[in-house]
């Protein structure tokens, strides 16, 4: 078994503590806001100048002046604030944002991350990725465990240009939750039906098994067919 994209987002949402300030990247990270428990106050930041961002705007109720960093029309929650770019990036670079949830192409055993240049991409673009990776307190990566060709994305060393060195704290994939520590990678959780050996098979660097390593506690609706060949 493995997890759906929503399942990966669900795991992250469950781990975000009350009162945390969080920036969500594009892709799987965007889904995280939908799974935060209703009784938990978590503040979502958008780098174009929003703190306290709510769900996407309903069709017909879009405000043309209110978009998120992915250029979608969004809403504000009570208690939200809006501000300019220097203020927004002071929140990021100044270490005030607690968590950045980012997609990644590759993560190395030492926490190096590559997510800004895809192979074969001819026109480069970095956006706020480097500011987030360098500045935010904890970088959480969400991604599929392997490429669509079945190759590991968690590597001894990144092959693509780095977004930031040694920045990743925790990796959430469709197969596992892995912590990046000074002692190397530590396997915390594995997807239902897998075991640590199955996760290791698809991970290039050696994984240490946490003493309390366990099968994920995740509702069946987030289970998917095994993506990994």
């Amino acid at each position, binding site marked *: 078994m493995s997890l759906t994209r929503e399942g990966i987002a669900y795991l992250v949402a469950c781990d975000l503590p009350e009162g945390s300030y969080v920036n969500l990247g*594009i892709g799987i990270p965007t889904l995280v806001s939908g799974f935060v428990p209703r009784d938990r106050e978590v503040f979502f930041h*958008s*780098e*174009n*100048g*929003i703190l306290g961002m709510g769900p996407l705007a309903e069709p017909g109720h*879009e*405000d*043309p*002046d*209110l*978009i998120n*960093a*992915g*250029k979608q*029309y969004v809403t504000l929650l009570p208690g939200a604030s*809006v*501000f*300019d*770019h*220097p203020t*927004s*990036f002071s929140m*990021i*670079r100044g270490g005030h944002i607690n968590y950045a949830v980012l997609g990644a192409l590759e993560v190395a055993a030492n926490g190096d991350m590559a997510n800004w240049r895809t192979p074969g*991409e*001819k*026109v*480069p*673009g*970095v*956006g*706020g*990725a*480097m*500011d987030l990776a*360098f*500045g935010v307190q904890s970088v959480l990566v969400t991604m599929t465990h392997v490429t669509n060709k079945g190759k590991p994305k968690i590597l001894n060393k990144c092959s693509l*240009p*780095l*977004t*930031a*060195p040694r920045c990743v704290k925790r990796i959430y994939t469709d197969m596992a939750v892995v912590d990046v520590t000074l002692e190397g990678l530590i396997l915390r959780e594995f997807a239902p039906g897998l075991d640590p050996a199955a996760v290791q098979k698809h991970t290039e660097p050696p994984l240490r098994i946490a003493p309390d390593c366990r099968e994920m506690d995740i509702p069946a609706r987030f289970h998917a067919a095994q993506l990994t060949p």
Partner: protein
Amino acid sequence: MVNKTLATCREAVANVFDGATILLGGFGDPGLPGQMLEALREQGAKDLTMVHNGSGGGTHALGGLIHDGRVRKLIASFPNNPGGTSFQELYLKGQIELELVPQGTLAERIRAAGAGLGGFFTPTAAGTELAKGKETRVIDGREYVFEKPLHGDFAFVRAYRGDRLGNLSYRMAMRNFNVPMVTAAKFVAAEVDELVPVGDLDPEDVHTPGIFVDRVVEVVRHPKYLEITTEGR
């Protein structure tokens, strides 16, 4: 009596010269002075250096200016935005120059210019290919990259309300790059949804004080600029 208002965007862009550097406000549609850009297309200045987060969309506004071959260089953080086809086509043909800058560094370089600073050290990009060739310094055990201020000859922005003194007030996510950009250029023009009498803007709601602004034009939003934008982050 001081009067910074103009009747048309055409007058606001009249002095743009060949080779000028233009700070272009907005992130997606909010804060983007779309009609001033259309006026600039008609005005004809070329060899421009445009400073903007993305590369615009399609063949209007910034995308149009690039499509017309009028932009020599783009300084941006996310020029590969979906819809930025005009830039992407020329870039792949080697017909437009790109300086790629992380988004927070771009905003801070503009802010530094407006604040009279000679630059700053940022941790962003240290040890990556975007720091190649740049001065670095280890401060309290952490590596930082030196970044220079980014000045404009012109800055064009959009705000929500403005008055004849150049005071501006923004709505929602319109402030973005506009707040620093108006401080960092020799000539600054803003298009606003509504021009109001002096005194109507509550001093507590003036986000850009008039000292930074040279010209204000009231512009009715064109429905074209109310469409869902295709520009990516």
